[in-house]
C-alpha cells in the first residue's frame, strides 16, 4: 500500500495561513491504514487547527470530509458541495488523491497535508517499511523476494557493496538490514544460491517512462 506521513504542523499552519474556510479532506484507503489521513486523523487535525487559530485570536471555519478513495473522480464528486463552500482544501490523501481533487476542482487551492513516502507494508503496529520501488521491471524471483531497488540503499543489482556493517547491517543505517545479505540468506534457504552468482546486467531504468501510464488490455 501507499504509505504517507502527515506533514509537520509548522508546515501545515503555513500552508493554510491565508485561508479562513478550509475543508480537511481524508481518504479511506491507504492513508487510513497508515494512520496519516483517514477519518480519525481528519477529525483530530481539524480540532487542532481550530484550537490553534482560537489561541491566536483568529477565526477559522473547518469542514471535514473523508471519501473512500480520493484518487477516484466519482468518489471525489460526492463532496463537491463541501468543496464549493470553502476557500481551500487541505487534503490528507496521497499525491494521487491531492491531484485528483485538483483536477476536479481546478479553481480551488488544494493543499497537501501529508508527505507521500513509499509503497510498503507494516513491520509492526505503527511502523511501516518500504518494500517496492515501482520500477516496472520486477525481478523478485531472482532475489528470493527481497527488492534491492528500494531495500538496498544504493539500489545495487550485484550486491552487497563493500560497506556492509558487522552482522549484516546496511552501511548507511545500522538499524536496517543489508538487503543483499537478506537475499543471500533467502536464496540459501531455498537452495538457489546459484542465482545470486549470476551476473545481473545494468538495469533498464526506462522500463517505466515517467510519467507512467498503463492501459489495461480490456479498455
Amino acid at each position, binding site marked *: 500500500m501507499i504509505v504517507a506521513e502527515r506533514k509537520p504542523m509548522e508546515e501545515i499552519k503555513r500552508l493554510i495561513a491565508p485561508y479562513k474556510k478550509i475543508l480537511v479532506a481524508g481518504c479511506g484507503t491507504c492513508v487510513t491504514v497508515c494512520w496519516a489521513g483517514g477519518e480519525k486523523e481528519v477529525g483530530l487535525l481539524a480540532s487542532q487547527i481550530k484550537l490553534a487559530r482560537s489561541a491566536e485570536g483568529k477565526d477559522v471555519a473547518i469542514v471535514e470530509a473523508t471519501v473512500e478513495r480520493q484518487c477516484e473522480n466519482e468518489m471525489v464528486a460526492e463532496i463537491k458541495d463541501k468543496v464549493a463552500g470553502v476557500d481551500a482544501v487541505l487534503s490528507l490523501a496521497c499525491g494521487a488523491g491531492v491531484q485528483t481533487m485538483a483536477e476536479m476542482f481546478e479553481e480551488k487551492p488544494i493543499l497537501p497535508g501529508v508527505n507521500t513516502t513509499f509503497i510498503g507494508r507494516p513491520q509492526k503496529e505503527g511502523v511501516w517499511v518500504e518494500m517496492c520501488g515501482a520500477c516496472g521491471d520486477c525481478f523478485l524471483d531472482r532475489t528470493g523476494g527481497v527488492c534491492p531497488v528500494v531495500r538496498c*540503499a*544504493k*539500489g*545495487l*543489482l*550485484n*550486491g*552487497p*557493496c*563493500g*560497506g*556492509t*556493517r*558487522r*552482522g*549484516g547491517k546496511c*552501511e*548507511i543505517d545500522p538499524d536496517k538490514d*543489508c538487503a*543483499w*545479505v537478506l*537475499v*543471500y540468506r533467502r536464496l540459501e534457504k531455498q537452495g538457489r*544460491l546459484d542465482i*545470486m*552468482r549470476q*551476473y*545481473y*546486467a*545494468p*538495469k533498464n*531504468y526506462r522500463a517505466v517512462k515517467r510519467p507512467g501510464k498503463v492501459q489495461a488490455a480490456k479498455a
Partner: protein
Amino acid sequence: MAKPFREVLKSKKFVVTAEVGPIKGSNVSKITEHIELLKDKVDAINVTDNQSSVMRYPSLGVCLLIKEHAGEPIFQVTCRDRNRLAIQADLLFAYSRGVNNVLCLTGDSIDVGDHKEAKQVFDLDSVQLIHLVHTLNSGKDMAGNELDGGTDFCIGASATPSADPLEPQLVKVEKKLKAGVSFIQTQAVYELDDLKRFVDYVRKIDGKVKILAGIVPVIGAKMAAYMNENVPGIFIPQQIIDELSQAPKGTGVAKGIEIAARMIRQIKDERICDGVHIMFIGREEKVPEILKSAGLM
C-alpha cells in the same frame, strides 16, 4: 617515466601502490607535492573519486597531473555520481590522455558525505562497471555501437576480506573475478588470517589476478574505535586497539606506522599476497616512512 602498471603486475615483484586524496578546491599545489613525493617510490598511485561522498577535485584531474609528472596513475571510478553515459565518456577521455588503469568501485552512499540532499546515481554497480570497461576495451560502447578509437584499460576491483557476514561478499568477489580483473586492492586488513582465507578463496577461482592488501595505519585507540563504528568494511581487532592505547601520548602516528610496517613485512616475508596498497589520506607525506620501515625502500 614510470613503468606501466600492467607490466609491473606481470612481473614477480612485490607490488606497492599508494593513494592520494584530492583537495576540496581547485588549488592543486598540495596534491602535486604528494605526487612528487610518491611517484618514484611506488608502482602506481590511486586517486580517490569524491571519497566518502565529499565533493572534491576530480580523480581524473589528478590522474592527468600524475601523468604530467611522469608517474603512473590508477583512476578510481565510483558509480555514485555519474550514469553510464558519463562514465563511458570519462573513460574515453582518460584513455586518450594516457591514463590506462582503472579501479572499479560502487562508491559510498551520499549520506556519509557533505552534500546529503543530492541524488545518488548508482546507474551501475562495481561489477557492471568492470563489464563496461571490458566492453570499451573491445572497441564498443554499452549500447553495442562501434567506437572510433577504443580503450585498453588494466582493470582492478576492490574487496572486503574482513566483511561480516563474509559469504555474500565472496559471491560478489566471484562475479568480479569472472568478469575479469587484473588486480584486486582490498579494503584495510588488520587480521592476516582474514587475508589468507581471502587469498585462498580467490586463487580457487583465478590463479593470475594480483591481490594487493589494503594497509591503513591507525594512529590511536580512539581512531580505531571510531573506524570500527563508522567506516564501512573496516574491522580492527582488540589486540591492535590495546597496542595503540598503550603507546605513550604523542606517539600515536609513529605507533600506527610501526604496526602497519610490521604487517607489510609479514605479508611480504610470508608471501601472503602479491603486494600492498597503502592508504594514509591526509598524511600522504608519511607514506615514505612506512615504506622504509617495511623494507620496501
